[in-house]
């Protein structure tokens, strides 16, 4: 629903600015999804008058206008035809910027200087299209800014109303909500007029047969009225709020619908057979044409408005074509009724017809406001039209009591919400809402709820009012019973490690748990082979045995002993992993302790697989598993560096794993000397990952739009000197061009055919652009770049097959 700030101010003279209203309402549960200044972009446009219009000497379709803003005189070239001297227009001088972003400059058009532009409604964002420039009311004062002169110095609030708050579907309803927040007063405008016509009973009659579906029906009659367009203010407000202006009578009913939330209908009294109204359901199915010209299938049980001969309206949904107000209409019966919500909803749904009126009736319209709405309509209309008002009115059901008394216990509010609400805080809220409180001192209070608050029927509904109008931000944050568990990075850590472990199990690795203490004697025996001076290790002062004297600085020895044991038990293929900590002395903190994930790989690559042969595992098996684990830990942009840093791994067959300058692990063949010391006959491969370092970047993956344009694949085979690291080649190819999306190695071999000390490597490159299909020439140029790189940077020679 849309509400204008100036309109709202007529009902509550609030101190809040439009933006403040937006925030306040939103935080009270009436969400204001947008708040737009209507004069935006019109700051630089001034009301001006055309002094003269002359033909453009060089262009038949253009005119030269002389325009004044009251101070200066400007020459403007204009392409429109709808203006003449004396017209008041909207002038954007050079330097102005329009709502649609257009920047106005001084220009020469076909040899004539133009010092600005005369704007059309469309250019000002006031209309979808416009036939010519905007011509203002002739009496508009020249020299003023445009926005206030045309009523656009205003704000339009767009409000999302939840189904329970039908009472907010009007300017008045929103004003009440603002008042409930600020404590300001809602003011209902006067609705008085002189009754100069004949007694209403002599010219019309009203009856309600089904009072259960229509508890209240109010009506007034006016005569001798002329049907003309509404004044600009009415038309503008309707249009801005999304209702098309039609004529003064229809407009006033729509205006009241927006203002008070009371749907009204205007019948042409002379077209009502017998000048009478009856409200009753349809007994038999029938066809009825509503005023949108559609024939509707009315089913029995739907509530209709009847005249002496037949239906004239679908009650609360839409009027009929047969009694529509037309140009010649002079006597009007204004209907302002209250219909039962469920009946209207059912009818509207079955007819597939939802109107502004049915939408409001479904959600509840204030039954106590029907008479005021008709009076307000007549009073407003009398401000700009001449007519006579029949004396008296119809008001069937007008004596009903529509308010409800609901019990309320402040202590219950405290119990449900979990915040202490003082009696004072409760009475304050009720008073701002206009709910009288009766506290006898004994038992629950009695709160009287006015008829417009359909949503308040029970104590819990009142508790909600207390909670929301005191602000949800004043509710403390507690935790059910035992208090909030304090989760940390460790929880996440555990979950990620479990995922990596699950993967290793799926890959045939069994989990080992070795003691954290190792034999200091063994460590010393192997000396520097273990890569950690035993004097840097943390030692126990009371070890449980000679074999458990120091805390392990890495996880290798435990897993290696597991392999040794397995072999002795005639198990010749071993895959084991362990998650545990490494310990040692450190420069700064005194000592360190660090979680690691390690695995060992020994024996055949695919034991027990009849088709894949019995190849032994090698470095690339261990590396593949390591890469997978790192990916599962969310570790990206890693690189493998050949190194000698870990003496327990074979030089030339081992690698450090680096990530932005940090070493996050190592992988390689276990040093032969260690294997023979443990009597392990074949090669074994080992990897160890420093889990926290590997995990340190924990950001949710950011999605990158899928490439829409087709890829091109290029295969390139190249012979390199043996020592060229293929990983470096891959990285440099990728860095060559953003269009190179993927580079894959699909073949590597050495052999006599290509000569010793050389290797052949074949790459597949995927080339793809983000915004276009690449041309052959572009692909060729990228291919050439790659070839140059391979030859010049890496000493390769391209193989042509």
């Amino acid at each position, binding site marked *: 629903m849309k509400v204008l700030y100036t309109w709202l101010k007529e009902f509550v003279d609030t101190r809040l600015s439009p933006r403040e209203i937006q925030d306040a309402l939103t935080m009270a549960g009436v*969400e204001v*999804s*947008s708040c737009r200044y209507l004069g935006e972009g019109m700051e630089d446009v001034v009301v001006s008058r055309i002094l003269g219009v002359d033909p453009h000497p060089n262009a038949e379709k253009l005119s030269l206008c002389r325009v004044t803003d009251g101070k200066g005189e400007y020459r403007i070239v204009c392409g429109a035809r709808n203006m003449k001297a004396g017209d008041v227009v909207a002038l954007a001088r050079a330097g102005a910027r329009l709502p649609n972003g257009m920047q106005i400059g001084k220009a020469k058009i076909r040899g004539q200087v133009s010092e600005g532009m005369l704007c059309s409604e469309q250019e000002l964002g006031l209309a979808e299209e416009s036939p010519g420039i905007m011509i203002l009311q002739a009496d508009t004062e020249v020299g003023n800014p445009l926005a206030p002169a045309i009523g656009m110095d205003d704000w339009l609030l767009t409000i999302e109303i*939840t*189904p329970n708050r039908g009472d907010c579907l009007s300017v008045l309803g929103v004003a009440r909500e603002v008042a409930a927040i600020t404590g300001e007063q809602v003011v209902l405008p006067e609705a008085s007029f002189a009754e100069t016509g004949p007694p209403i009973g002599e010219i019309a009659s009203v009856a309600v047969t089904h009072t259960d579906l229509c508890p209240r029906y109010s009506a007034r009659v006016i005569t001798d009225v002329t049907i003309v367009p509404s004044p600009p203010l009415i038309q503008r407000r309707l249009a801005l709020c999304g209702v098309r202006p039609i004529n003064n009578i229809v407009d006033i009913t729509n205006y009241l619908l927006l203002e008070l939330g009371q749907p009204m209908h205007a019948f042409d009294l002379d077209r009502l057979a017998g000048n009478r109204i009856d409200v009753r359901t349809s007994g038999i199915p029938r066809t009825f044409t509503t005023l949108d010209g559609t024939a509707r299938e009315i089913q029995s049980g739907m509530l209709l408005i009847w005249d002496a001969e037949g239906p004239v309206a679908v009650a609360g949904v839409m009027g009929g074509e047969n009694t529509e107000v037309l140009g010649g209409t002079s006597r009007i019966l204004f209907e302002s009724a209250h219909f039962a919500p469920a009946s209207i*909803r059912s009818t509207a749904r079955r007819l597939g017809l939802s109107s502004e009126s049915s939408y409001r009736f479904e959600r509840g319209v204030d039954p106590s406001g029907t008479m005021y709405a008709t009076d307000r309509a007549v009073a407003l209309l009398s401000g700009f039209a001449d007519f006579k008002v029949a004396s008296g009115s119809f008001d069937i059901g007008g004596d009903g009591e529509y308010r409800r008394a609901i019990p309320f216990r402040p202590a219950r509010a405290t119990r*449900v*919400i*979990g915040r202490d609400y003082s009696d004072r805080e409760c009475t304050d809220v009720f008073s701002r809402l206009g709910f009288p409180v009766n506290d006898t001192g004994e038992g629950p209070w009695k709160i009287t709820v006015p008829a417009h608050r359909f949503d308040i029927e029970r104590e*819990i*509904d009142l508790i*909600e009012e207390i*909670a*929301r109008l005191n602000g*949800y*931000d004043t509710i*403390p*944050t*507690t*935790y*059910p*019973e035992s208090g909030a568990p304090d*989760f940390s990075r460790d*929880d996440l850590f555990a979950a990620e490690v479990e995922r990596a472990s699950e*993967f290793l199990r799926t*890959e045939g690795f069994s989990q080992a748990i070795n003691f954290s203490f190792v034999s200091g004697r063994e460590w010393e025996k192997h000396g520097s082979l273990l890569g950690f001076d035993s004097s840097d290790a943390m030692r126990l002062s009371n070890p449980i045995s000679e074999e458990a004297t120091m805390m392990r600085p890495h996880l290798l020895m435990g897993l290696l002993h597991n392999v040794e044991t397995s072999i002795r038990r005639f198990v010749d293929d071993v895959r084991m992993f362990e998650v545990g900590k490494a310990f040692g002395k*450190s*420069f*700064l903190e005194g000592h360190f302790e660090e979680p690691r994930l390690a695995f060992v790989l020994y024996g055949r690559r695919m034991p027990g697989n009849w088709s894949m042969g019995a190849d032994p595992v*090698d*470095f*690339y*098996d261990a*590396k*593949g*598993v390591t890469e*997978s684990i790192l*990916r599962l830990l969310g570790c990206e942009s890693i*690189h493998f560096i050949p190194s000698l*840093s870990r003496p327990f791994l*074979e*030089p*030339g*067959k*081992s*690698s450090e794993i680096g990530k932005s*300058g*940090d*070493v996050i692990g190592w992988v390689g063949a276990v040093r032969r000397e260690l294997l023979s010391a443990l009597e392990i006959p074949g090669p074994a491969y080992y990897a160890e990952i420093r889990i926290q370092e590997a995990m340190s970047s924990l950001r*949710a*993956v950011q*999605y990158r739009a*899928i490439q829409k344009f087709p890829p091109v694949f290029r295969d390139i085979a190249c012979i390199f000197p043996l020592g*060229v*690291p293929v*990983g*470096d080649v*891959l990285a440099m190819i990728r860095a060559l061009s953003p269009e190179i999306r993927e580079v894959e190695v699909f073949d*590597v071999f050495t052999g006599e055919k290509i000569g010793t000390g050389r*290797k052949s490597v074949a790459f597949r490159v995927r080339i793809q652009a983000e915004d276009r299909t690449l041309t052959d020439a572009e692909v060729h140029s990228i291919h050439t770049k790659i070839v140059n790189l391979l030859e010049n940077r890496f000493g390769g020679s391209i193989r042509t097959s």
Partner: protein
Amino acid sequence: MPDTIERIAILTEEGLRAISSAKTESDLLDAKGRYFGKKGAISEILKNVASLALEDRKRVGASANEARSNLEASFARRLGEIREKGRRAREGFEQIDVTLPGRGPRLGHRHPISWTMSEIIAIFQRLGFSIRGGPEIEKDYYNFEALNIPKDHPARDMQDTFYLDWPGGDLVLRTHTSPIQIRAMETMRPPVRVIAPGAVYRCDSDITHSPMFHQVEGFAVDRTITMADLKGLLTEFCRMMFGESNPLRFRPSFFPFTEPSAEVDIRCVICGGSGCRVCKDSGWLEILGCGMIDPAVYGFVGYDPEEYTGFAFGMGVERIAMLRHGISDIRLFFENDPRFLSQF
């Protein structure tokens, strides 16, 4: 402050010693990490410089920067020496190319929805909630009636429902996971603490709506549960899901089966609150709906509303996944394009 300068001097000396005594590249990187790497001691000092007085800031900053460039120069020198030594040492060995990609399984990918869903579930399981499921073809009674959404009530407009072609016409595809509340409460007595994840359906399709999507529902009923508890629980959840410091707000709203009701907004993760297209310039993103279970609901499951209070909440998994991963079109989730899936 003089302490800081002195500490920098000590750290520099220690660092230089560690660098010159490094025998291997990894020793060297260790030393870098400890003293002047991204998380090294000197970098930490530099990070905290902003909290010092202006005068001190200049002096400490200059001194720390100088220390760092000293250490870096010495690092680079030693790295060259070690590499040269390594090259000479390696010449005697058989060498393989360790930079060639590893051999091994090609890992598959998680669907981002199930990824997000399992993270949400894991958080609530840790908070003491157990999982309950329910049918996706659901009776009108459970999907609407017992949740205080009677026929011919405007609240039914909040969800476009799929109906099954079935005699009696009262079978729907559940429009939310809330019917599980009713089913669970019918068979359990308080205290209950349940989380209910699953697919739900609404007759709606555009770039932010899919006819099938996923929700996680949660609720708790006991003698002393309050709205403050609900706030506490969801604050904890958002902290774990969206990060420690991302502010959130509770805003009154309406759901037929809770009262009072609220929507929870988090500070926009795209613009940080300054306003953008995703948050429609509000600076906030609606993330879930919640409230105190309406006493009318207890009437359907035979709980005494004077004795028990409880809360319920529900969230759209797709919406959360879209925010986490920066996905702007919900339909991508259901196309299962390998180029999409392979990013997760």
